[in-house]
């Protein structure tokens, strides 16, 4: 029974990681690649670590470590993705020609790299 659960978790996790890998190869520009990979890879890695936590049930330390890695991945992956996306926008990485809306256009100060909220004109 526990083997079936572990196999199921492993399968879903591996397929999520495969989807992330295909996405990073096939998507047309950087922002779409980032949006595909971070979420799918975090889900896949989390599920595989969860299956490791199920596989070593008599060792509490392994379960704790696996859950700590999941917590750390969920905590840090969005932060890293946000920072690298901000950097990519600031150095003017090309956007896909099918992009129809860019809400950040003109909002970043070119010199100080500060983000304008767009509400100062109303005051």
């Amino acid at each position, binding site marked *: 029974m526990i083997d079936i659960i572990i*196999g199921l978790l*492993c399968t879903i996790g591996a397929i999520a990681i495969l989807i992330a890998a295909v996405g*990073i190869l096939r998507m047309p520009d*950087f922002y779409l690649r980032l949006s595909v990979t971070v979420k799918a890879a975090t889900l896949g890695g989390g599920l*595989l670590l969860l299956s490791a936590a199920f596989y070593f049930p008599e060792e509490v330390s392994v379960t704790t470590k696996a859950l700590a890695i999941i917590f750390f991945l969920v905590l840090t992956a969005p932060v*890293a993705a946000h*920072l690298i996306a901000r*950097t990519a926008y600031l150095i003017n990485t090309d956007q896909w020609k099918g992009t129809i809306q860019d809400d950040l256009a003109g909002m970043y100060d070119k010199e100080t790299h500060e983000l304008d909220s767009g509400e100062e004109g109303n005051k």
Partner: protein
Amino acid sequence: MTLDSYIDYVILPILAVSLLLVFIRLFKGPTIVDRVIALDLLITIGISVITVYSISTGKSTFIDVAMILALIAFLGTIAFSYYIEKRGRK
């Protein structure tokens, strides 16, 4: 089919194919930020491979390596984004 052989013959090959696809993007990557996220994804898949390998061999010690790798991946991406922003060009 036991769990060990299922992991050896199905899960690990899927992860290996994923690593290969990400490597293609790491070499092609038109801009440097593409390469940074490819490296980040490569390390995340590496964590998964280490975890699956520790299930397959029954040795739980490898999980420690995965923890350190997760830390290094985060710090690497942060450092890359900081210095690419300082450099200010593609």
